[in-house]
């Protein structure tokens, strides 16, 4: 299935629009990208999952790491656009309360 993403900057915000499945095969690459962005000084990182159809536990791991990493650097990492399975998994795992923000 694979995963691709595009990164856009708008003012102080960096938005990663991901497309595909975040799973065992693709999560490391995404994780490295998020780490680089946050290490590179981005303080407001948003991942848009509107075009992501699946996120397994390794994908959740990547999102949690980015969230914690951003918090340590005094920044934020939030998720937007989750629907269907991805929305369900964020809700079931209770991560919605950390990762989702009402106003992305």
């Amino acid at each position, binding site marked *: 299935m694979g995963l691709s993403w595009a990164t856009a900057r708008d003012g102080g915000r960096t938005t990663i629009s991901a497309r595909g499945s975040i799973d065992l095969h693709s999560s490391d690459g995404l994780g490295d990208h998020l780490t680089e962005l946050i290490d590179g000084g981005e303080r407001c990182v948003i991942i848009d999952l509107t075009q992501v159809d*699946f996120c397994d*536990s390794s994908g*959740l791991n990547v999102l949690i790491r980015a969230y914690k990493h951003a918090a340590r650097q005094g920044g934020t990492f939030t998720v937007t656009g989750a629907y269907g399975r991805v929305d369900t998994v964020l809700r079931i*795992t209770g991560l919605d309360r*950390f990762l989702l923000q009402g106003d992305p």
Partner: protein
Amino acid sequence: MTAGFAAVPEASWQGWLSYVAEASDLLAGTLDEERLVALLAQLVVPRLAVWCAVYVADDRLACVWHTDEELADPLRAVLTESGPPLQTVPGPWPEFSVGVTYVLPLVARRRRIGAMVIGGERFARGAVELAEELGRRAALALDNARLYAAQLAMSRALQRSLLPPALPDIPGIESAVVYEPAGEGAEVGGDFYDLFAAPGGDHWRFAVGDVCGTGPEAAAVTGLARHALRILAAEDLALADVLTRLNRIILAEGPRSRLMTLLHGDLCPGPDGTVRMDLVSAGHPLPLVLRPDGTVREAAVPQPLLGVMDEVKYEPNLLVLYPGEVMLCVTDGVTERRDGAHMLGDDQGLERLLGGCTGLSAGAVAARIQRAVHDYGAAPSEDDLAIVVFRVG
């Protein structure tokens, strides 16, 4: 066929080359000692020798193969009588007086792991050298098989240690469990379950969990969680407080910690036939309850998975199960079972499946869910799965 003729040499060296190549493929294709030994003997007889005997670790005579099948048993008797060849270098077997013999010690990774003996009236030119070549390859394959068997035994022992030896009887509740680790069994899975009596003897606790990842690192976290749950229960800690504590214990492992989803419950059968239950679903697929009329409901409110945030405080959900009701707990090996782009749990797939299980015993419900998982996709599942079912009354 009769015994006592020399092995027939291959017509051309190309023939021998493809014979050795094929033999190598065959030997490299299995990790089972018994099969390897039989394969080696059948590769050697009748092409290179009239008979062949293979000894494995501790000089156990593992295989005797003879061109004339009827002579295999008498030959085995003679070989058993004479004992194994103990020589460490290739050469004739002077203690064995029937026909010509040649002993080829099987050496892998500089260790003698057995021996092959070939015999006949006389050997064709090059036969001994070819047998030696096959022996070298077989020895390496046998040694790989031994290492694999050791790893398999270790994984299985570790896996067993993470699951309860038996399920306790709970008055008024039928329980059933299905557990399937993924793959061929060389890897320890990340799913686990437990069910045990809590202090006082009037309530029981169960757990269904899934540690992110597989292998020994995940198993270490599973072991930590399983023992923590039992110890904290024995200390009479309230259910939700157990989760709060376990979360901190897992996070304290630092870089060795893993994400973990856990459904933990405390079952208390009442005198009126109902079962009162405290439940906490820490990031786990929600338990489902089936009523006798076929309706299905989610039985807990999601709370965060373990190993993420230090400050999470878990709260118990109270549930009362009535006679005839069934509770189904699964891991994501069930809900995320794939068939192409589809998953079993899509569009309330598991709810619909459970809705069709009215009137079934706990064991029959578990078996039906398991079969549905197997039948869902054409490809075998790549994930572990655990299914725990309780039925009241």
